């Protein structure tokens, strides 16, 4: 019931993001999502590819510090306050959100929210109870 995502550690120096995107691009890997968390000293690139396993193999072989994480993905209607409602559920249950990002695919009237929380099992249970549509890797 969880969505797989790749995370790559990256030093803050020029050319690193190019090296990553180029390594995947020339192998025909297509990104579904990509976000970057940056700090003063380093960044973490998080992305979902059409073919996560192959992307992982390619990056490992190219020497990147890469790992696979599992996220909770939910689908909501693309309308105001939809994100707030999901966040409110987590807050009421006192589940800390580590990070979150969302995206909308063209020709869809739904938005997808991806998040990493402190207590994944409890969050999944809660979202199911509230009837929120959960994404799996396939649905994505």
């Amino acid at each position, binding site marked *: 019931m969880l969505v797989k995502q790749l995370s790559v550690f990256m030093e803050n120096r020029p050319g*690193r993001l190019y090296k990553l995107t180029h390594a995947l691009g020339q192998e025909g890997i297509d990104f579904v999502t990509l976000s970057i968390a940056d700090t003063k*000293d380093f960044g*973490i690139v998080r992305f979902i590819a059409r073919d996560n396993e192959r992307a992982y193999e390619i990056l490992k072989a190219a020497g990147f510090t890469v790992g696979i994480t599992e996220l909770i993905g939910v689908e909501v209607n693309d309308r105001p306050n939809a994100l707030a409602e999901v966040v409110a559920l987590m807050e009421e249950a006192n589940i800390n959100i580590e990070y979150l990002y969302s995206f909308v695919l063209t020709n869809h009237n739904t938005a997808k929210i991806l998040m990493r929380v402190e207590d994944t099992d409890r969050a999944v249970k809660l979202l199911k109870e509230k009837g929120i549509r959960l994404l799996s890797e396939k649905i994505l």
Partner: protein
Amino acid sequence: MKGTLKDYIYRPEYECLSRSEMENLQSERLRKTVELVYNHCKPYRAKMDEFKIKPSDIRSVADLSKLPFTVKHDLRAAYPFGFYTAPQRDIVEVHASSGTTGKLTVVGYTQNDIDVWAEVAARGLAMAGVTKDSLVHVAYGYGLFTGGLGAHYGSQKIGASTVPASAGNTIRQLTLLRDFGATHLCCTPSYAIFLGTELEKAGMDIKDFNLQGGVFGAEPWTYQMREEIERVLNIDALDIYGLSEISGPGVAMECMQKHGSHVQEDHFIPEIIDPETLEPLPFGSEGELVFTTITKTGQPLIRYRTRDLCTLSDEKCACGRTTVKMSKVKGRSDDMLIIRGVNVFPSQIEAAIMNVAGVSPHYMIYVDRINNLDVIEIDIELAGNLTPDRVSDIENIKKKVETEVNSYIGLSAKIKLCESGSIRRSEGKAVRVVDRREQ
């Protein structure tokens, strides 16, 4: 280059002996010391037995090279007190310096040894013109490190007013220096420059200070640094040399000729050896400095290898002293770094890093001098199997490395986490340290 201090000879009856007088004195003291260590120090007895040498084989300084060397590792193997030649009840002070594996090198002093130390430190301070009328501000750290107490004992022996400021709190240091009218400053050379630059930043004027001389040591420094210190503090800056194993600061000290440091030869016999073949080298040759203490009674050392590289000279000095002079230390014959006066071995840093999960054993240590202070940066690769997802996970790894390194070497280092595979792998002997301080 100020050149206004009045260098005077504190103990001419020992500092101005002819070569044969000095050798006779050294020979007599060496015989006693060898007798002492053979009878009262197990590691020495074992070593001498192994080399089939009896105390009676050592008649004069010419026989010195028959004796085995002592290295830091010997002291650590006998940790903590295995090298004492005096009973514990006669030991009045203990000092220690950091070692390669986190284990300390311990040195015990009898009252006689403290008196010897005070004597040689006083001779050194006299070269910088310290008299009963002086006010000596000691900004070396006081504690297990010998810098603070060594300068303190020497200054008190002369009878100067001694201010035990110890290290840290720069603004307070500057205020004390100015308000008390200190004539002399004792600290590390890098801290002296730092004080000079902070003085300007704090809006103080060097004209309001009464400083005349500085006695700087505990880390190697260059002639360029001397010029800089003399300029910013408007003083004569002199180099003091010492190491806790032998005594502490005062083993050798630069006179106002500012060209080499006089070794207090009636207490410590210096030799220069080839660090590879271990053969003694003649005056003028560069090699590793070795000392034999000949007046200490708590923990005398025979042919102790300092690992410091320099030259010795018996050329006549214009100051009138006849003691042998050592050049500035040009480097080390091992990989020890001296950072802010603290001895640091790369192996300590490696041991610290190995205690942290999430990083690899691939690292580089960079040492720089930024704003005249030594700084260490350690670049270290993350472990290849790490899942680098949460920023807080990565930051925790960094904090753990910082804490571990600090607890191993007693200094804070800047930690930079790197991508796996990004640190250059060397073929053969790994290059782990880049010292970018100007030599």
